[in-house]
């Protein structure tokens, strides 16, 4: 047989071999094609699936922005940042019940509860968590690092002895709002809820500045990738996205001034057995609120107690902003300012002015149009001038003056002047929630009960601070206007907001540190303001209604006021709001300070007067806060001989305003003897 002629059997075998080879090649190419499809075409999809099976994304907590004290109020003070609230790292304890063998659960729970000092009741409740069919149950929140380390020291040998996977017990880190100064500024700051929003992992504010500045304070969660393995502890892994901390808010409030205000207010309220009280301190030059105290205080760490108890809910509000009241006699300087403004307008138009501050005005008859009862003073005065009217807090003088005002300028002018000059009836837009704009009656407008807001006797009531509702910030701003020479400043609580980035850079989001007074509108002639200050200086001196507000060593100007509280729609003779509002020093004031006591005990104090009067119960608190605050600010005494008669430090020849007080006394006696 020729070698070229193939053997039929070998040929068949070769043919089969080729077929098998082709088939193999085809199958191999199919495999390659599939590989290509999986690795190249669908690579991303499969990588994603694989990663999700082997890795998990953990949320990296961010630090919520903090509130800082105003450390720049004077030189010589520490420049270090002083936080009112900070986020302190804490830990939450979780278990993975599915990974814990049923035989070990009881022992594990008992040991763990002992370490956590759980009560018997809580132990019973929490043991249920071990029996649940779940991979993650929360056992305890807000543990500190020491406690976490203590639990871990117990857990590691326990887990290996009982052959439990290490991750059956794990911790997650979080930041907790902490208050180094306790309840200081509590009602203004407020807090955040214990549980975060489950969707966004953001804190839920309960009110106050936390709520108003929540958009700045909240940060952004980071992301950490971790291998799904019992050998990888929860806090390891790669940080794929850095958390972004919240922005820090720098307040105008100084922590030391706030502490002085709160301490003195608490002491004063306790002395007069009041229901509570509040104090507002503001820089008249720029509207910065330097202290905002309230008694009883709101404790942010126990916020749920306050919200769950209806009797305590009112303590969660900043009453100086959310509550309005009839100001009473502290409104009298406002009445005089309006009348002096009318004087200026009349003089400008070439007309006769309403009055002269030195004019002898008859004040024995308080019967005024529309009133069923005459206006009365504390005691009968036959004739008074403006200084005496302020000194004696005369209702009749104010009523008579306003009678001239509305006879000449009209009701509408009076009402508009109160709104446009002092901003009564309008929100101050201070950065706190639920501001009550109060009520300034309008001629022709009806109350919800159908009665007219403005009737014939309304202007005379307004003259003495009745029939008008205002909040404390509005009132303090009105006095700031007198103190600063006529500028309507914007009250505010925030100086700046700064976001600090992880690389150390800073971004200023809000900056209000510049002087604001030049931007403010001048609404009152500085001469009128100056004349009012002179009149208000008599109030705290001999013969005045508020001698207890005389700040030793410093000059001051102010006015006390007492108003009846409205209870169930009626004025109460037994319940009062007693206030003193003034500024120190009288010339170039450092701050305006309002002190209000809610419902002081009504009684007569021998040698002093009725305790419920502002000049008796609120004035001493004003004096103490003002004196200690000025000392803290390093303010040189501007009246070093201005002590009360009988004090060895007093020198009547050198004491400020002593000669003027003597001269006024002489005139008063001439007119009223």
């Amino acid at each position, binding site marked *: 047989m020729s070698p070229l002629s193939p053997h039929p059997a070998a040929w068949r075998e070769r043919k089969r071999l080729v077929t098998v080879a082709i088939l193999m090649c085809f199958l191999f190419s199919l495999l390659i094609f599939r590989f290509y499809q999986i690795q190249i075409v669908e690579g991303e999809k499969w990588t994603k699936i694989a990663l999700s099976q082997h890795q998990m994304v953990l949320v990296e907590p961010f630090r919520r922005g903090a509130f800082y004290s105003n450390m720049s109020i004077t030189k010589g003070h520490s420049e270090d940042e002083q936080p009112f609230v900070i986020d302190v*790292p804490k830990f939450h304890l979780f278990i993975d019940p599915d990974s814990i063998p049923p035989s070990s659960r009881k022992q594990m729970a008992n040991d763990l509860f002992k370490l956590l000092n759980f009560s018997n009741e809580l132990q019973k409740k929490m043991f249920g968590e071990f029996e649940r069919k779940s991979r993650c149950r929360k056992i305890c929140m807000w543990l500190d690092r020491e406690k976490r380390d203590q639990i871990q020291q117990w857990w590691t040998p326990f887990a290996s002895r009982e052959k439990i996977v290490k991750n059956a017990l794990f911790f997650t880190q979080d930041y907790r709002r902490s208050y180094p100064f306790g309840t200081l500024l509590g009602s203004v700051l407020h807090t955040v809820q214990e549980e975060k929003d489950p969707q966004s992992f953001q804190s839920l504010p309960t009110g106050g500045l936390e709520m108003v500045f929540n958009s700045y304070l909240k940060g952004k969660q980071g992301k950490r990738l971790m291998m799904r393995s019992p050998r990888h502890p929860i806090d390891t892994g790669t940080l794929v996205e850095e958390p972004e901390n919240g922005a820090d808010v720098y307040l105008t409030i100084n922590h030391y001034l706030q*502490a002085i205000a709160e301490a003195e207010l608490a002491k004063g309220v306790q002395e007069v057995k009041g229901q509570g009280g509040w104090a507002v301190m503001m820089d008249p030059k720029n509207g910065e609120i330097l202290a905002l105290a309230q008694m009883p205080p709101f404790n942010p760490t126990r916020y749920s107690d306050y919200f769950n108890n209806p009797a305590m809910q009112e303590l969660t509000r900043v009453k100086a902003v959310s509550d309005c009241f009839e100001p009473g006699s502290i409104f009298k300087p406002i009445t005089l300012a309006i009348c002096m403004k009318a004087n200026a307008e009349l003089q400008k138009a070439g007309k006769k002015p309403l009055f002269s501050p030195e004019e002898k005005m008859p004040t024995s008859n308080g019967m005024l149009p529309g009133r069923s009862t005459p206006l009365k003073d504390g005691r009968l005065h036959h004739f008074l001038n403006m200084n005496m009217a302020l000194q004696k807090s005369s209702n009749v003088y104010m009523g008579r003056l306003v009678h001239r005002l509305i006879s000449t300028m009209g009701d509408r002018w009076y009402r508009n002047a109160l709104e446009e000059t002092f901003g009564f009836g309008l929100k101050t837009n201070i950065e706190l929630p639920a501001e009550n704009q109060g009520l300034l009656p309008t001629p022709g407008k009806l109350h919800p009960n159908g009665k007219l807001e403005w009737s014939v006797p309304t202007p005379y009531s307004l003259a003495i601070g009745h029939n008008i509702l205002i909040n404390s910030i509005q009132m303090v701003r009105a006095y700031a206007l007198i103190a600063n020479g006529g500028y309507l400043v914007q009250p505010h609580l925030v100086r700046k907001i700064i976001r600090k980035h992880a690389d150390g850079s800073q971004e200023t989001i809000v900056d209000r540190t510049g002087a604001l007074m030049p931007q403010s509108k001048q609404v009152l002639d500085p001469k009128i303001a100056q004349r009012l200050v002179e009149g208000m200086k008599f109030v705290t001196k001999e013969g005045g209604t508020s001698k207890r507000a005389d700040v030793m060593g410093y000059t001051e100007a102010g006015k006390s006021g007492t108003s009846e509280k409205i209870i169930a729609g009626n004025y109460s003779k037994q319940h009062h709001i007693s206030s003193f509002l003034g500024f120190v020093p009288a010339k170039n004031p450092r701050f305006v300070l309002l002190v209000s006591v809610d419902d002081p005990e009504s009684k007569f104090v021998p040698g002093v007067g009725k305790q419920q009067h502002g000049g008796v119960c609120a004035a001493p608190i004003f004096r103490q806060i003002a004196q200690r605050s000025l000392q803290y*600010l390093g303010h040189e005494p501007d009246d070093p001989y201005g002590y009360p008669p009988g004090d060895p430090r007093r020198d009547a020849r050198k004491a400020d305003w002593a000669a003027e007080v003597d001269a006024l006394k002489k005139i008063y006696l001439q007119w009223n003897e």
Partner: protein
Amino acid sequence: MPKGLLLRLGFCLGVVCFCLYSYLNKQNELTHLKIRLPQLEKEIKLIAEENCRLQYEIDRMENPTRLIELAHRPEFSNLKHPMMKEILTVPEGIAVKSDSERTSGLW
């Protein structure tokens, strides 16, 4: 083979080996640092947390309400807030200059 060529070849090989060694050594050092980095990062985080906690404790101690109470005690009755005119602020530049002069023996 000429002796000079062998020497030059040997020198070149030596330089190449040295460079290779240096490169590998540097790589090892870098790897070593890379291994230490997460550990250091964790330590820094712990220190920062501890710092934050301690600052919180210091702030609690320096609570102005507590300081005011302390100031009322008889043993601290000699302390008072300084007046503005009593506070002298030395500009930083002058303070640094004075300090360097003192250390250089001029003072």
